[in-house]
């Protein structure tokens, strides 16, 4: 089934007091200029064609609405721009920081690249390799820069605190999808089933992966928003990360975290005894064993507090959301 089809847009003039817009499938037309958007006074007709600023010559669109012509021009005339745009985005997904800080604006109002030669080189070789994203991922992930540790070094911090020279991997944090999925997974509550309709991620009964969270324009889900999910009424090139007091309130006080802790505490331990249980909690939540000191502190906590409270403590830790 085609979800996208070619259609031409017309104003139905049958009612003098009401503007109906008609889409006629299978038709194509060149639109007139509508000064100030006034559909009652159409101006000169402009033939549909590729953007003049990117076009090598005047390419009129001839096939249907011109969707196919447009796609072809993006990969030919506009290839220098289009390849840099996607390379910049893939780079940002791997490094947590783009080379051009405005991924949706490479124009005069956008930022200049921090590493122009790197962007040019990657984009050129990306095109030479047949626009293969698989090649691009491999090229980036096999680079020395990508494989560096994120550990801070005193001398390097003093010289380049913003890491603009990529002397280390940028420390990252889990996005809300990975974070919420992690919390559901470790508590044994996650429903990993694929496909189906979206659901309200704020509901206590919602335990599917966060990718199924409903993104409603009029009623945005609160939890994803709390962790920088962008405004769904606008296009967004990425997320602006914030660290807010409301996030702390969620972690320390929310019923979601309470349910997660209950879930973790309910999971069976491999052996009897508090020490075995603590070890099980550490493995489940932090994927490692406790140090001797951590085990001691946990045992003295458990002398007075519950296993569930201790699970909540571990779930609240920086180590859960931080991605070194």
């Amino acid at each position, binding site marked *: 089934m085609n979800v996208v089809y070619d259609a031409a847009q017309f104003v139905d003039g049958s009612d003098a007091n009401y503007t109906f817009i008609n889409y006629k499938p299978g038709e194509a037309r060149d639109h007139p200029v509508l000064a100030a958007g006034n559909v009652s006074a159409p101006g000169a007709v402009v033939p549909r064609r590729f953007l003049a600023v990117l076009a090598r010559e005047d390419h009129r669109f001839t096939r249907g609405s011109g969707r196919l012509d447009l796609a072809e021009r993006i990969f030919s005339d506009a290839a220098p721009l289009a390849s840099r745009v996607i390379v910049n985005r893939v780079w940002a997904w791997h490094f947590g920081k783009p080379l051009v800080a405005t991924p949706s604006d490479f124009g005069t109002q956008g930022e200049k690249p921090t590493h122009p030669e790197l962007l040019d080189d990657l984009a050129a070789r990306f095109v030479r390799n047949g626009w293969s994203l698989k090649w691009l991922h491999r090229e980036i992930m096999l680079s020395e820069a990508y494989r560096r540790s994120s550990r801070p070094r005193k001398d390097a911090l003093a010289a380049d*605190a913003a890491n603009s020279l990529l002397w280390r991997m940028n420390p990252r944090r889990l996005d809300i999808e990975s974070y919420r999925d992690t919390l559901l997974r470790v508590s044994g509550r996650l429903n990993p089933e694929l496909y189906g309709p979206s659901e309200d991620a704020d509901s206590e009964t919602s335990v599917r992966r966060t990718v199924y969270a409903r993104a409603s324009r009029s009623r945005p889900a609160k939890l994803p928003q709390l962790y920088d999910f962008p405004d769904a009424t606008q296009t967004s090139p990425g997320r602006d990360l914030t660290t807010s007091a409301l996030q702390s*309130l969620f972690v320390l006080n929310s019923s979601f975290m309470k349910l997660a802790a209950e879930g973790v505490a309910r999971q069976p331990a491999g052996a009897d005894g508090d020490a075995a249980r603590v070890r099980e909690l550490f493995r489940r939540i932090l994927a490692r064993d406790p140090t001797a000191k951590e085990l001691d502190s946990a045992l003295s906590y458990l002398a007075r507090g519950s296993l569930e409270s201790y699970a909540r403590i571990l779930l609240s830790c920086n180590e859960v959301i931080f991605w070194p």
Partner: protein
Amino acid sequence: MTPHLSRRTLLTRMGGGLGAAALTDLLTRNANAAVRGFYNGPKLPARAKHVIMLFLAGGPSHVDMFDPKPALEKYKGQRPGSVDLRTERETGGLLPSPFQFNKYGRNGVDVSELLPKLASVIDDVCVIRSMYTFNPTHTPARSLYHTGSILATRPSTGAWMSYGLGTDNDNLPAFVVLTPGGGGSGGSLSRSGFLPAEHQGISFNCSEAEPEKMIPDLRNRWSSAETQRADLDAIQQLNHAFGEQFGPDDYLEGRINLDQAVETSAGGGRWPTLAE
């Protein structure tokens, strides 16, 4: 990553604004606070203590309150060619305001009969009548008002205030946006845009007056204050150990400080209500 900010530098940067001294103290106390961007231009005489902006979407027209249009009376009922647009719904001709205007105060500001009390203090009010919009659609027009652009990417008024004047709190958002029903103008009201994220505002649904209802998860409903204290100590202990092992990091330290701030304010004391 201690920001190297002398007291003098900071005060200069802040233009000696009211929040400056307090902010300097906070930064000295909390050396890890991210100070990436504040206004760094010529000094401004900042006398304002607070900026409160009321944006009354759906309020009465300026034409009925402060902006008499005598020409509307003259061309009443007509549809001149320049306004004879095809509209979404049926529309009539030009409509003059049905309300009487008079001039008030020493400057003779026009105010309609709808606002007699405001008219009596009009000398304390600044009325701006020179603004216009070029986009009649709600969302872009709101964005234009709040950010100066119909594209929802630029910083909001509040973010500019925070950038230019600073703030004297270290654990609350730069500014807050109260939106009845939680809706409103989406992110346009609170967005920091290309300004650093510390100038981001936070939206609260002010249909609720009680802080517990306005701010999600304000209180811990499961543990006593003593248990919360003990739990937070245990969290901090683990976080400090992790931080020591990893090394200095803004995000890790910011999260530790916020937990602390949240616990101190929510655990012990009482939050003020909106009315207060």
